[in-house]
């Protein structure tokens, strides 16, 4: 399955990101969107799956840059 993920950061000027990835994003995951580090707060289906693609909406909050060993990718 390929996860097409819409990352949104409420209350922040950052416009978010769209990324296709081969694993489901998860709460607590730390992701880098441009120069900003975020922690995933919530994930939910945005649209029904279609073919090999799942469409996911992710809500994040900005965090300080994590230590290297805590980064998921």
């Amino acid at each position, binding site marked *: 399955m*390929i996860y*097409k993920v*819409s990352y949104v950061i*409420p*209350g922040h000027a950052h416009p978010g990101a*769209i990324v*296709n990835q081969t694993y489901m994003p998860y709460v607590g995951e730390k992701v880098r*969107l441009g120069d900003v580090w975020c922690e995933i707060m919530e994930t939910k289906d945005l649209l029904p799956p279609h073919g090999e693609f799942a469409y996911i909406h992710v809500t994040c909050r900005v965090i300080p840059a994590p230590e290297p060993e805590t980064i998921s990718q």
Partner: protein
Amino acid sequence: MTTPIDVLRTADLFAGLSIEQIQALADLGEKRTYQRDDIIVREEEAGDEFFIVLSGQVKVGCLGAADGPTLVLLGAGQGFGEISMLDSGPRSATISCVSESAEVLIIHGKLLLDYCDRENLVGYRVMYNLARDLAFKLRHRNISLQQREECQS
């Protein structure tokens, strides 16, 4: 060097296509690597190339400058440049590299559209995929704006 098929198949443009069809489309293009802050596409300039991010992240901005307002970041699998490819108008945004580097597959629009004309079933799928991707980008934009307004009110 060819792009691994497991990377190509994560791109929206190729959804629903066979490995052979994906490879044929990818062979129309060329890979290029950009470094942080490199401008890939500049707003208002002419161009019909379609781009697929293979790795890294790019920033979609407006006002013609790399440091202008950012509309969205696009990561692996995402395409851009489709608006000018489809309507022959000038570029509607400036796209720059925001990761250390970004690898991009560049397909000239005429080659892609000619291929779609020759291979109707592939062409239908490609156009359908482009439409779905544009719809998803609109949804993302709507949600971002809605959440920003909620936070400001």
